[in-house]
């Protein structure tokens, strides 16, 4: 055993295409466990694509580059070789911007399966789930912390949920699955100011020092309790600038004009991507 290494999620020169259209054009990012990073950028710059690529969405084809986790023993695990469920079991999580409705499937049943697999990565289909009583107690406690009604667990996953309920359900899943690295894709969109504050506090409490978090957001409120170690700005499929929390504040106040002016090549790529997307839509 070598000396203890900090666990890290490392993304190198990542290129991702959707239906043969290149969206990410070489992304580099390194997130240590326990660190909070913010990812900002105009719509269509590729932020959600990065989240999907990390989680292994089948429509998002990684054409080159790598995503790896550096383990505490120094070994590197190739994330790209894993199926989405294996990535979840390896400790990755994506809070969806638009979570899918699964009619007829109750939140509690779904989460009990998810928790069983993530906590016991070797679990096979049909093997024992986490004990019901233990699971229920934990779920109830986590729901109380998120000020969620207990009825929520019996509802069908995201089926007929309001925007706010969906986002809270995503945070609940984050809390229950306790990943090592999480991407939160606009977990603040569709929430009112109080709900964003609650979400921000909850994420800070859940994350603590154990989670590496990439927060994708257009606003700074979500960062209020999650001061980012670094803020990254994505434009035209690349991270063009990284800074501290003050960068998030600047972008929130002033928008992306300065960024576009400073990185004309990325801004041109952004325009080309927008035109291409409009043509295929």
């Amino acid at each position, binding site marked *: 055993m070598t000396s203890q290494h900090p666990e890290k999620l490392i993304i190198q020169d990542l290129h991702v295409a959707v239906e043969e259209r290149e969206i990410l054009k070489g992304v580099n990012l390194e997130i240590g466990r326990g660190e909070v990073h913010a990812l900002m950028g105009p719509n269509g710059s590729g932020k959600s694509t990065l989240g999907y690529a990390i*989680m*292994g*969405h*089948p*429509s998002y084809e990684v054409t080159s580059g790598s995503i790896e986790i550096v383990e505490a023993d120094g070994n590197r695990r190739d994330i790209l070789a894993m*199926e*989405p*469920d294996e*990535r*979840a*079991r390896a400790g990755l*999580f*994506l809070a*969806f911007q638009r*979570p*899918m409705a*699964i*009619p*007829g*499937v109750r939140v509690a*049943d*779904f*989460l009990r*399966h*998810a*928790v069983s*697999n*993530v906590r016991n990565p070797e679990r096979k*289909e*049909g093997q024992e789930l986490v004990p019901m009583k233990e699971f229920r107690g934990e779920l109830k406690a986590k729901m109380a912390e998120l000020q969620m009604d207990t009825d929520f667990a019996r509802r*069908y996953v995201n089926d007929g949920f309001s925007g706010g309920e969906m986002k809270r359900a995503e945070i609940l*899943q984050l809390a229950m*699955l306790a990943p090592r690295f999480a991407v939160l894709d606009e977990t603040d969109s569709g929430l009112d100011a109080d709900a964003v504050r609650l979400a921000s506090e909850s994420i800070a409490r859940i994350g603590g020092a154990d989670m590496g978090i990439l927060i994708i957001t257009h606003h700074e409120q979500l960062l209020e309790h999650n001061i980012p170690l670094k803020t990254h700005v994505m434009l035209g499929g690349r991270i063009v600038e990284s800074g501290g929390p003050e960068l998030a504040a600047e972008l929130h106040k002033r928008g992306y004009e300065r960024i576009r002016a400073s990185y004309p090549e990325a801004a041109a790529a952004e325009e080309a991507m927008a035109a291409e997307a409009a043509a295929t839509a």
Partner: protein
Amino acid sequence: MATDTHETSTLAAVPGNGAGVSKPVFGEINKYDFRTESPAIFKARRGLSRDIVNQISEMKKEPAWMRDFRLKSLEIFESKPMPHWGGRIGVNFEDIYYYLKPTEQQGKTWDDVPDEIKKTFDRLGIPEAERKFLAGVKAQFESEVVYGSLQEDLAKKGVIFTDTDTAVREHPDLLREYFGKIIPPSDNKFAALNSAVWSGGSFIYVPKGVSIEFPLQAYFRINAENMGQFERTLIVVDEGAHVHYVEGCTAPMYSTESLHSAVVEIVVKKHGRCRYTTIQNWANNIYNLVTKRAMAYEGALMEWIDGNLGSQLTMKYPAVYMMEPGARGEILSIAFASAGQHQDAGAKLVHAAPHTSGRIVSKSISKNGGRSSYRGLVKVEPGARKSKSSVVCDALILDDKSRSDTYPYIEIEEQDVSIGHEASVSKIGEEQLFYLTSRGLSEAEASAMIVGGFIEPLVKELPMEYAVEMNKLIELQMEGSVG
């Protein structure tokens, strides 16, 4: 769920996609793949003839009217052609045993039931199920009911719950009034066959105003190679009475073809209510050709809940004939077709009186080359004014090899009615699968969960232990289905 088509009020068949039915694959559901040695006391010769029918009637010591009914039915059976629609029925009627009698006498208590038979039921979990949930158990083993119990208070209320053979002996007048009247032997070839060689099944009479709060249950299985099973059930719900009857079935697997052809007749009188729940999980070689029909009178409610899994071919369309004003009919149908299986299932609603209302909800799942067809009829007779019917059928297709068809027949001979029909065909959405797998569920678990959710609206109508069993069966069906 990605809905590919959605249409309203159509008479046309929706063509299925994907290939047809592939060869049967055995070994998918192995939970019930076992058989116990059972010393059948009498085994009729293979094949069908007047002699065999006479012999069956004689063995049962039946009155002349029943023997004559059987013989007449045999003539009808022989004169009728095979149905020319539905699925391919590859049954050789000469290869089938038409009667088996496993024990001399019906067991009166659990202790009287032969050990071999108990062992089979043990493995199916029947005794526990009885202790926990069931008030009266009628378990049919091979061709006859071998075990029956009925709670005393039911008997005190005048409820009759017995096997149909016993009812012929002990309640001849009551039985004869309805037997073969709702589904006459001339109805179809398989109703005629059942009428000629029937054995076992349940007879239930619920007197006026009597309400039975817990489900009555029968649980049976086929356990002899090449043996046809022809049970015959008759339920009479008198005025203002209420009953829920549950029929469950799992069958072990065999390599040769086998036939199951039941007849279920139900009468629900004025303001009576009857619910009939079936979960059938047949071996992949079984032809399951069943006729089920209920007559509902003034203000009465008849509900069929029908779950069909397994079998090589199932053709089953539970019907409600609404005979008097205010009668209601509800039919919920679930079909799951996997490799080598064709579920041709559906429902029939006949509005024969004004102010009657009916509803059909059908959910079908096709996977691994399986084929499921919804075949339904809504008929409104002349004069059945202000009748209302709605039909919703949703099909879920799990892969490109599988197939789903819809054959909705609507015959309306009255102007002043409201009839709705909706059909949808879906595939499991990639986005749903990704969402679930991104939370750590394997693709098979995620698919099973989506399928479970798809049928949840029907499963929640089932008594608890059946809902649990249904979900388990779906999980077993889904295992190894992906990849």
